């Protein structure tokens, strides 16, 4: 690959991948809001 093409591809793809991963991990690890929230899957935790 040409240097220009490779640079453009790597810079773009690495940036997009890191931003996507950052936001998705934030979704996974952000503390849940107090019940009742919007997600029925969290309801059991309150019962416990």
């Amino acid at each position, binding site marked *: 690959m040409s240097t220009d093409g490779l640079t453009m591809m790597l810079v773009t793809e690495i940036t997009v991948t890191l*931003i996507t991963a950052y936001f998705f991990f934030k979704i996974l690890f952000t503390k849940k809001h107090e019940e009742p929230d*919007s997600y029925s*899957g969290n309801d059991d935790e309150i019962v416990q």
Partner: protein
Amino acid sequence: MSKSETSGWGSRVGLVLAMAGNAVGLGNFLRFPVQAIENGGGAFIIPYLVCFLLMGIPLLFVEWSIGRFGGNKGHHSTPFILDSMDKRALWKYIGVFGIFTNLAVAAYYCYLESWTLSYVWHSIADTFGGKTQGEVAGFFGNYVSLSSAEPIIFWAICLLLNTWILSRGLSGGVEKAAKIGMPLLLLFGAFLAYKAITIHAGADGALFDGTVGLDYLWTPDYSTIWDSKVWLAAAGQIFFTLSIGMGSIQCYASYVKSKDDIALNAMSAGWMNGFVEIVLGSAIIIPIAVGYLGIDGMKELLSEGGGLGLGFKTLPYLFEQWGSMLGVIAGVAWFGLLFFAGVTSSLAMGTPVMGFLKDEFGWKEKNAAWAFGFAVFILGLPTVLFFNNGVFDEYDYWAGTVSLVVFAFVEIILFAWIFGMDKGWKEINLGADIKVPIVFKYIIQYVTPLLLGWVFINSIPDIVGTLNHEGSKAKIEFYQNEEAMREKSKEQKKLLSGKKDYDPSFLSPNVVTDEQLVANKNITIPTYLLIKKERELEKIRTDVAYRNSKIEDEEKTMLYKNISRLFLLALWLGIAYLVYIASKKSKITTT
């Protein structure tokens, strides 16, 4: 007021995956790479990302906020979501677009989705094994010409599957489908991208390394960066890829409570779509096509049938070059990936329609899902039966293109200027798990509406041209112009004479019949398609009866397109009438 409070999301990850699945569609793999190639290669990514930041993300914030706001007032479809933001009757009817677009797009999109399902089946059954490039391309032509009942059967299966999933509700159906579909889509995409990038020249019949295609796609041509056409293409791609201006994002977000985050959810789903499009979408069809056909061959194929033609007419043959077993696996992965991309989007089109029926007419989940399935069947029939008469494209243009821009433009004006930007900004930040930079407040208020207005104004000549059937009229004019046809023929013959797999005898149907031509294993697909085009042109030029029949076909296409426009208009008016009845009903209930 809502009667459907029992619906809701099971988990936050499920909501984000469903929302990302709504955005990720066939366009991520078939449209984006083609747009990049046609608009400056790697340099296209600059206007693309700028439009994402100035138009995509702001509209995601706006649609998520509007949806959650309306949902908390008990509404899950845009007519009454918009009504909850401003009580003037106009907004209810503007909101009709949020149901109309979903129904009309689902009508043709489910048919497209059914092709992918059928091709998964044919990949498993090894239908494409041992076939020539011409035969594989011909298979697609026969398929959409309804030469057997198979397309109808797969379409019906697809509609039933969508209806069944929708009837199981958000957490039990849509969310589960997203949780299965999205990881599989990523897995299939990663496998195909790896195979595409590691294609080696000389191995399995490849002419070039897969990286040659990547290089072609990513090498920036900065001279295009100031071309307004390129910016328009980037803005258009952002629109299609994020599913904004449809009404489905608002519906999904309407099931989020007011104290729960939408800002982080919107960013996560939006960037996930960007990841699939930029990282995976750029690494599959172009590297494979360039690896086996060269850059010129790939460009000729794109000019013939775009990404859709490349994905359905050519890739099944190219996968076969990887060996029988791997060919089957690659076929299942490619069409499976497209199927998951499609189904997670079509499910999102069903929910606003169901939300409307449940909220405003008290329908049960199952009945609403079946009503959606039935409506899509009726509306989709013309796109299936008259595909070759341009009905499919007509639906795509008016419902899947123009309506999106119109609705998004009006919606952001409502949010920023009528509902009020201060109130709107508060809505975006309510319960937010991230700090949204204040600059977005000003982008939403000034930059995004201006950008949208610019996109719309620039689209006007194209809208007028489409309304006047300029494409069909130009074809008829061409068929009646002997000189123009002769020039075109000269041009095509010159192109053919430069090809190694071309023999002048291929142009004489009396010497090489259609059957012999398609069965010739030595002819590559770009040459085959060009020969077919030249043979067709020669026939139009020399056979008056055939020429007249081609002109009649174009006239018929214009007629069918006009009828489908009336059909779409009737659909819009029908939904508007239902909105009128529902609002009258709710007035009676409240008094």
